[in-house]
């Protein structure tokens, strides 16, 4: 049994929507709610992107500390076994020292790129002390626990990964910033505004379609009913 809970972390205020939907909704401003997810299995506690900070292109208003959110489900930061970094952009990068017993899972391609991004992406990775952190490096798709698989989806960043949670009948894909809004897939696929390679974006979206899972979008612009919690058997 897998129990998934959404932790509302805060909001990107007055965010230019085309940052999330490439070349669409240009000039439109939104408040985008940012969430972390806690996945609790019989064996482990997993967090996805348990942090929010202001990106260089906007301002984040923090809602609650991750410690507070964990306590609401009877956990503390020492209980966390895995922290999944979907990618290493500074707006969602969680300080590993907060989770002393956790393995920090990141794609090898992401770590390499974060250490040497192109000039246009340097601000996205600024001030992350990558050299001081001991990551558990993943290469490609990887099942980390029964029913929980990391899915490599390059495009937004070279080493972006999402999280597939699957039970006997239900499948959820926590797509994060790769599919930030329901608009990202409403008509045809709209790549995220920030990306490294558009062709990879489209290939990764085809991969998502093959997974046949319900997509949990990275941000909530209040246009749809947000995922709250779910138990998968």
């Amino acid at each position, binding site marked *: 049994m897998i129990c998934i809970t959404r932790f509302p972390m805060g909001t990107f205020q007055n965010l*230019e929507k*085309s*940052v999330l939907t*490439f*070349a669409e909704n*240009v*000039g439109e401003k939104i408040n985008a709610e940012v969430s972390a997810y806690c996945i609790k299995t019989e064996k482990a506690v997993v967090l996805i992107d348990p942090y929010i900070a202001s990106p*260089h*292109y906007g301002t984040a208003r923090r809602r609650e500390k991750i410690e507070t959110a964990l306590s609401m489900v009877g956990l503390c930061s020492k209980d966390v076994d895995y922290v999944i970094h979907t990618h290493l952009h500074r707006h969602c990068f969680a300080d590993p020292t907060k989770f002393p017993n956790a393995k920090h899972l990141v794609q090898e391609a992401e770590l390499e790129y974060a250490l040497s991004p*192109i*000039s*246009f*992406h340097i*601000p996205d990775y600024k001030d992350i002390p990558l050299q001081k952190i001991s990551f558990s490096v993943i290469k490609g798709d990887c099942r980390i626990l029964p029913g929980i698989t990391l899915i490599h989806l390059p495009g937004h960043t070279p080493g972006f990964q999402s999280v597939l949670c699957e039970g006997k009948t239900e499948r959820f894909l926590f797509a994060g910033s790769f599919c930030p809004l329901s608009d990202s897939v409403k008509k*045809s*696929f*709209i*790549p995220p*505004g*920030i*990306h*490294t*390679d*558009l*062709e990879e974006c*489209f290939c990764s979206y085809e991969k998502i379609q093959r997974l046949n899972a319900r997509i949990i979008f990275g941000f909530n612009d209040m246009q749809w009913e947000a995922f709250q919690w779910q138990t998968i058997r």
Partner: protein
Amino acid sequence: MANYTIIPLQTGILSHFDKSSFTYLIDAGCKDDFPLLSFLVLGNRKIILVDSGPPFDPESQKHYSFFSAPQMHIRIQLKRFGIKPEDIDTLILTHLHWDHCYNTELFENAKIYVQRREIEYIQNPLPIHIDSYSAPYYKTVFKPIPSDSRFQYIDGDIEIVSGLTLVSLPGHTPGLQGLLVKTGGIRYLLASDCVDLVENWKGNETYPHIPSTGHNDLVEYEKTFRKIEQIADVVIPGHDKCVLDNSYYGN
């Protein structure tokens, strides 16, 4: 070394156009007018046209939300300098977006240079790029006729005559090429939409250079910017109205 004169020709205007279409993720919502540009390069007994302009029919102007006055037609623009389309001996298509590659039928005596990568890409562009390559009049993407012997397909950089070099500048599109003009000891780069505006090249406090929003691979785009730093002294952008402040460049 031969001397060359570079003359900008305005073939249309993108009116009230969102600036962030050129400056990726910067100034979203800011509207301005931007010219569609071709260039005439004269010298060394050559008459060279860089880009043959947009389709001028009203349907295309409506579809792409651009304006072209009758005097902006490429034929009339050339006539200002006493040049007829059949006098053009070399036509360089920097890339195959709609505002750069139409009217090729006018240039019956020209060798037409296109990068092979660009031809390959338009066979199956990404969904978000199809419209940029589309021709509403023809209801299809632009495709040269295979039997048209005027077309010369280029792989990478090549000097076509002394002082004039086609340079591969991928990023905006996979097969974009610029023309490097060496004249009077200065290396001018007609960068086309690799550098839409002066601001794209000069950058800002955050970015050394700013890519165009029209792009397919930003990592490749960054390498192209590094290449331009090495090869050019003066970068002439593809859509900046300040280009028209000078009636000519070079000698």
